């Protein structure tokens, strides 16, 4: 073999090595382990699709929480919605009816949050004498209402923000 082809092979080896390294990194980028990462700079389109999907799954919960689509309740608290304003389920809203809403990682919860900092049954939002209350259910990492850690049931007013790990929940009417 000529000197030129040997030099080319020598450089080719380094190119091949880096090709392997870079494609390994590419595989890691595509591989998100099934947990959704909402990072800035990721395609806006995919985020919209995700939100649409979240909405779709959220919709049937109306029936369970006692409100039919289109029915308007005269009672003020019943018109309230629980909106997810940050985290993997951002954009999801849940209508709040008479039934309490359970938030956690277990699939039996009304709002299921897939977050390492979320406990199986994390917290509960419920109606007490026409006031919405939030109560922590002994979660590992705590529920925060504003900057205060929630332990006993505390009133959850319109515009208040609950934080659970990376997820933020807001009460809207």
């Amino acid at each position, binding site marked *: 073999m000529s000197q030129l082809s040997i030099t080319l092979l*020598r450089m080719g080896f*380094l190119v091949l*090595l880096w090709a392997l390294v870079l494609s*390994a990194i590419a595989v890691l980028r595509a*591989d998100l*382990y099934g947990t959704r990462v909402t990072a800035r700079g990721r395609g806006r389109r995919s985020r919209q699709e995700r939100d649409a999907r979240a909405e779709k799954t959220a919709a049937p919960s109306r029936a369970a929480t006692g409100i039919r689509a289109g029915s308007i309740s005269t009672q003020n608290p019943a018109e309230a919605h629980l909106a997810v304003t940050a985290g993997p389920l951002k954009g*999801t809203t849940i209508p709040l009816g008479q039934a309490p809403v359970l938030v956690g990682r277990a*699939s039996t919860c009304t709002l*299921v949050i897939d977050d390492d900092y979320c406990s199986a049954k994390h917290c509960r939002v419920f109606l007490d004498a026409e006031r919405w209350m939030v109560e922590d259910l002994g979660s590992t990492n705590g529920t925060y209402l504003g900057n205060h850690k929630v332990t006993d049931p505390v009133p959850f007013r319109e515009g208040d923000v609950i934080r659970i790990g990376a997820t933020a929940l807001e009460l809207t009417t």
Partner: protein
Amino acid sequence: MAIVADVHVRTGRRSELGLLAIAVAVAVLARGLVDYHAHILEPVEISVYAGAWIGVLALVHLALRRWAPFADPVLVPAVATLVGIGLAMIRRIDFAYAARGRDTNFGDVQTVWALIGVALMLLVILLLRDYRLLRRFTYTSGVLGLIALLLPLMPVIGTQINGARIWINVFGRSLQPGEFAKIAFVVFFAGYLVSNRDTLALAGPKVLGLRLPRVRDMGPLALVWVAAMLVQIYERDLGTSLLLFGIFVAMLYVATERISWVVIGMGAFAVGAVAAGTIFAHVGSRYTAWLHALDADVYRSGQSEQLVRGLFGMASGGLFGTGLGEGRPDLVPYAESDFIVASLGEELGLTGLMAILVLYVIIVQRAMRTAIGTRHGFGKLLATGLGFAIALQVFIVVGGVTRVIPLTGLTTPFLAYGGSSMLANFIIIGLLLRLSDQARRPEEVRA
């Protein structure tokens, strides 16, 4: 009523296949270049070599599809590439020694070790169906690790080679039990810390803005510190002592989230290392060789000769290296084991060495990602510990060869010549594959 985000899990097995193909190409091209420069390149032989690589990796790939379908797709290709480069380099150094009249067959021996290593890795995946089983052996593995660590000090079987007393003689072969002790200790630390982390995380006095743990909880750290110091003094092995202590401190930090443990641990080790360097001559000479490597006196007395030759080897490699088979890595003593990083730096240059280091980063990153994905506290600590074991070992070796820290006798995982290290590291990869398989398995399959 549940709102479950649509989760799509890729097993990644197809990506793994693609990466494995490139890994085979790297390994075969490396061997081809080495053989060509040794003037023994034969198409038939290189085809057999390529066939063997494809066969072994296909076996591993199919085994993973069958027994650990959700295992991490990048671990095996990264390890295969490192082993391929290592085998070619060791073979190349055999040729260089032969040209100078020294007959060695490190390359063939290492190939056998690598094959046994792969078999062990598959055995781990096959036999260990649930890593949580290991938690039952927390204290057993702690005792085993301690025995393995102390074996080289025993009179009959312990052997001293090149000043370090870290080998034992079994069936005429020398074995480094410290490499296996590393794994046993990671299992022990993980099991111990997952049960006791709450106590260790308790806040104590605050000093200079740093929240210290309570003094009475310092027992375990002190114990590991004493063990690390004893290893350094009696086995004359700074590397293993730094490795074990580093793994413990890293896992302690991950378990308790208290940065003060890292500060206390590093401080204690620095104090111990300096004290040992002042009191014991053999430890002190290591520090002299490191700090004054280029002094004429130190070089001439032979203390820093190996280190300096390695540095000059890497310098002559430059950015793109001399090319596989075209440098003179054999001028450095132990070019095939302790100084394989310098040999690779010379022949593949900075570009090649960086690629190799990034491969290690990828392996360690996968271990950390597995730790995040695992739901079980024990699994999290186990994956972190195994990841840190590889990361610290690479840091200690490469740091030693490049004169960032004092030179120690640890082996570069998967690259350097040495059976114990090869087997132990393949067991680590087997454990990581099992852990990542369980971490990534979706809920419905997991049941």
